């Protein structure tokens, strides 16, 4: 097999695997988790009827969505009304292409496209995700969806700035935008959320923790706003806008918006994990005779079954971290009330933008004076 054909086949396998085996089941089960966790938080039980502990609930939900009448109201702008759900779903899935979700498996790097502008690609595609919402709101041709669409566009623009500025300290430190390089850096020097882990005796690393933590907080909050999750779910705002941009949608078209939102949540968590929590990296405490206690790095570089096991372990670690972050997303959603629109704008422009900007200067100062 030639190198090009090998690349094509492995890429195709990776795309199919990641989309159909990982992302889509993860989306449906995060919906299930959302319902169960919200119920537990509110002293209820949640869906527990379909299958053991309600585990087949997502299948029942999917059947319901498929079998429902796909109603197109007479007053909508047909072409854009049909286009919008696709535009909401596609960018959310496309973003995962550059995320390194594992080390290597059978010698193939577990990232679909390792481009040198990794994070910028994520931001660019995520920023296109707003078109689905805006077009849905506009083409529905009625008040509430329209308000939802307008809110989505202004919210997205406000928070994209802090999103972009929040990660600049990481680039200052790593010197590259490529996500695999950022992961490599974290393996060698400690995770970005806690840079001191790599070298606990170094005061500079402890100092570096301050800007890194600030950028983690700003980035996470901006991801919340980008994915329209509560406390920033103003485009949907069930109580005041009756569902917002997807008020006029039903059946599978509504389901696509729904799934798009959760897929965006998963890719957002994947980006946070990659940038701040060392992606697939999880050192295990190890003890063997001549070396004594040390941290063992597991990846797919070993030969034989150990390499395969290591590669699978890394993929598992990555998605376990993503799942943990998803639980935090859900937890936050069922705790906080929604921000008012002016509060949202004020928060984005007056606080996060400035905090991220000042944070860059702090990080730059530390990086400039830090001994190599």
């Amino acid at each position, binding site marked *: 097999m030639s190198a090009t054909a090998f690349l094509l086949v492995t890429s195709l396998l990776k795309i199919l695997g990641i989309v159909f085996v990982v992302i889509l089941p993860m989306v449906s089960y995060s919906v299930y988790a959302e319902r169960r966790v919200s119920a537990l938080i*509110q*002293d209820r039980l949640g869906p527990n009827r379909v299958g053991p502990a309600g585990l087949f609930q997502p299948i029942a939900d999917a059947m319901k969505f498929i079998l429902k009448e796909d109603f197109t109201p007479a007053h909508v702008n047909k072409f854009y009304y049909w286009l919008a759900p696709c535009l909401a779903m596609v960018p959310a899935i496309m973003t995962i292409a550059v995320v390194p979700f594992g080390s290597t498996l059978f010698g193939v790097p577990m990232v679909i496209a390792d481009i040198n502008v990794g994070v910028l690609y994520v931001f660019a595609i995520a920023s296109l995700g707003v078109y689905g919402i805006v077009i849905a709101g506009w083409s529905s041709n009625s008040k509430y969806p329209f308000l939802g669409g307008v809110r989505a566009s202004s919210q997205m623009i406000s928070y994209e700035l802090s999103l972009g500025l929040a990660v600049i300290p990481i680039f200052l430190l790593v010197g590259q935008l490529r996500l695999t390089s950022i992961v490599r850096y974290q393996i060698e020097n400690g995770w970005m959320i806690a840079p001191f882990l790599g070298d606990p005796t170094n005061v500079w690393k402890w100092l570096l923790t301050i800007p890194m933590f600030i950028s983690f907080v700003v980035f996470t909050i901006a991801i919340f706003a980008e994915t329209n999750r509560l406390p920033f779910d103003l485009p949907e705002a069930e109580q005041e806008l009756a569902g917002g941009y997807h008020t006029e949608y039903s059946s599978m078209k509504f389901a696509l918006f729904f799934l798009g939102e959760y897929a965006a949540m998963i890719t957002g968590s994947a980006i946070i994990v990659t940038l701040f929590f060392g992606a697939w990296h999880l050192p295990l405490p190890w003890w063997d005779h001549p070396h004594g206690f040390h941290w063992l790095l597991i990846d797919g570089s070993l030969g034989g079954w150990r390499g395969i096991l290591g590669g699978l372990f890394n993929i598992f670690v990555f998605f376990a971290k993503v799942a943990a972050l998803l639980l935090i997303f859900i937890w936050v959603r069922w705790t906080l009330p929604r921000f008012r629109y002016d509060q949202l704008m004020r928060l984005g422009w007056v606080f996060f933008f400035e905090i991220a900007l000042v944070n860059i200067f702090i990080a730059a100062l530390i990086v400039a004076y830090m001994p190599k």
Partner: protein
Amino acid sequence: MAITVRRPNLSWSERAYLPAILSGMAITLRHLKNMLAGRTKVTMQYPEQKWDSYLPEHYRGAPALVKDERDRVRCVACQLCEFICPPRAIKIVPGEIPLGERFAKVEKYPEEFDIDMIRCIYCGMCEEVCPEQAIFLRKDYAITGLTRADMVHNKEKLIEIGGVMHGLVLKWNEQK
């Protein structure tokens, strides 16, 4: 009249949102933990656990015709319940008890007694108005059917639901 609401003066930590957010998240986490540990009392799991044994005596379920200890259906087809029924759910066809029967002096009995459970509102007026203590609201609450005809309880069904009730006034005793 316009009322000016005084905004509370928030301290620095309150305005920074994050401490309040964290304490809120601690509250929800506590609820989650209590649920997982099984310390929170939750709703009854309906089809498996039923509240039948907790139902009070005065519970208003499906209306039904009762028998007394002597196995007599007590209804005398006076049709008072049919007239009082607010949604007009009851339909009675009275018949005559032939001479020579044990309770011939009662004269009338219901030949047909239908209650349309789609219309019934479980108000209990039939029970209240009945001069014979013949119709009672029992504890059946899960009345289902696949067709409209299924939802009409006929006389047999009503007697079946009603069952035997003890301690009623035996007004048609032979001794009297």
